[in-house]
């Protein structure tokens, strides 16, 4: 999956562009914004969107757009860390499980099955009860939700390719198991993992915002997309734009990530080509 291929596929390109724009916005947006972060302005409480406040203001007079960008930083950071952790653990255990087989494989797969047997959000919720609330714990919860997915994908694909010619060649040449796993096998099975990664980050944001929305995730005053939406929910009837526009932002960001994931999937699936006769 080379860069050129990504640029040619419309879906992947659209997804990548949207995601890129979004990333740039949340990185430099709050810096460029004329409104101070966390700046209260009790004269301008709950104002609808206008030229000066593109998303309006919230119950404390803060500029919602700036807050959303800041919150997006936090949400994205949490989701990416959680998913990255899940990837590191999942890929490592998956590689060894798929390669060695035996009791380790059995153990990991049983663990994965168990984790899969709980609804994702329930798992996250449960963990928050056990660990307590806060940014770090939300990331850990996301890691727990996604670890089984990466572990299983990695393990299954590793199992399929472990007897391929190049792997056997590496073995014969005396390469250590770790080298074989990470230098030979991993690059060849990375496609579905990457597809899953972009989808995972997207849904990780959904989990985070869900937890924060019901108050069991990120705690205010730390902004996150879920916290802002929880705010917006409190005065939804009076000022629906806070919740609405924040959600629109989330949707657009997730759209980008999902399109990217879709495009990557299309690119890596040879069966999706047209047939002649």
């Amino acid at each position: 999956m080379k860069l050129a291929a990504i640029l040619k596929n419309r879906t992947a390109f659209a997804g990548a562009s949207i995601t890129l724009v979004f990333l740039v916005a949340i990185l430099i947006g709050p810096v460029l914004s004329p409104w101070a972060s966390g700046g209260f302005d009790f004269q301008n409480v709950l104002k609808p969107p206008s030229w000066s406040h593109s998303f309006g203001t919230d119950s404390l007079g803060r500029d919602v757009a700036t807050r959303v960008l800041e919150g997006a930083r936090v949400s994205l950071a949490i989701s990416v860390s959680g998913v990255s952790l899940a990837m590191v653990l999942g890929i490592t255990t998956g590689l060894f499980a798929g390669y060695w087989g035996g009791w380790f494989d059995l153990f990991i797969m049983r663990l994965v099955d168990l984790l899969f047997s709980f609804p994702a959000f329930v798992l996250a919720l449960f963990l928050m009860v056990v660990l307590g609330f806060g940014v770090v714990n939300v990331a850990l919860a996301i890691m727990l939700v996604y670890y089984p997915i990466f572990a299983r994908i990695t393990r299954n694909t590793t199992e399929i390719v472990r007897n391929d010619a190049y792997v056997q060649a590496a073995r014969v040449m005396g390469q250590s198991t770790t080298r074989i796993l990470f230098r030979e096998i991993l690059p060849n099975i990375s496609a579905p993992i990457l597809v899953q990664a972009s989808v995972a980050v997207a849904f990780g944001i959904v989990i985070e915002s869900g937890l924060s929305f019901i108050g069991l995730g990120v705690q205010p005053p730390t902004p996150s997309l879920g916290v802002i939406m929880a705010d917006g929910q409190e005065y939804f009837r009076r000022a629906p734009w806070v919740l609405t526009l924040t959600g629109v932002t989330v949707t657009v960001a997730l759209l980008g990530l999902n399109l990217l994931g879709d495009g990557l999937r299309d690119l890596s699936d040879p069966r999706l080509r047209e047939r002649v006769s």
Partner: protein
Amino acid sequence: MTISLNYFLSRLLGACMTMIIGTFVVFIVMKAAPGDPALVVLGDFATPEAVARFNSEYGLDQPVLGQYLDWLKGIAQLDFGTSLSIASRQDISRLILFRLPNTFTIGIYAIAIAILVSLTLGTLAAIYRGSSIDAAATSVSVLGVSMPDFWLAYMLILGLSIGLGWFPSYGFIPVSTSFLGAMHSGFLPALAIAAPMAAVFSRTLRTSLVENLNRDHVLVAKSFGHPASFIFLHHVLRNSIIPYIVVIGLQIRYLLGGVVIIERVFGINGIGSLMVEAAFARDYFVVQACAVVFLAIVLSVNFIVDLVCALLDPKRSR
């Protein structure tokens, strides 16, 4: 088509084993939670004697394994213990029994909507693949997965409840009171949960249908002069059903997750909202009971999906 008894029993055994391991893990992990149940109930300034009395009453001074086995035994008899704080000293089982049907109703309602919508969208997208209809259906699908479900719920409330006044935005009439009332008050929550699922199901169905449309036996059927509708029904749809059902089974995991928040948003008295309330109130016994209930639901659904797939797929049941 029949399934061998062997298959059935092995699946059942597997599910039971996972259930037992699951309850153990839930219990042990819950024990690691910060906070002392005694203090939750009696308050932070409880005397050591009161705490000791509390602990012995609830069996909390027993060895951990013993506590677990007692709890497990209780669950087997559908006794989940007593609530700490939410419904002080009341049977958790009664709480659950009261709330479970609501969750079920919303859940099944959501799945039904998702299946109906996805069958339509997926089929349209497959039959008219490459055209603007396909593009539109796919766009709707991608959008469906990109929206947070609780946000969609509020958008629906904004539009259909506050705006048009067609549906209530809060409260749920249980089926036992009125079926029509349940359908009416449950429509928005079910729709909010169903949307992302319908999106995923449509995509899966479309992919599956398109794959099967390219299969040889479809062309062979055409060569025998069978009409297109027959071919679609029996050679394409029938063959696409299995992966579709498998995905439905896999998505249950996310459906139930959505139920938790949606129940909160719409004020529905279900297991999801129970778990959230218990989480806030530090009612550990209720939380672990809810976790176990969810576990049981997921395992049962997986089991049923497995059986249905085995029934429909001749290669599996022989």
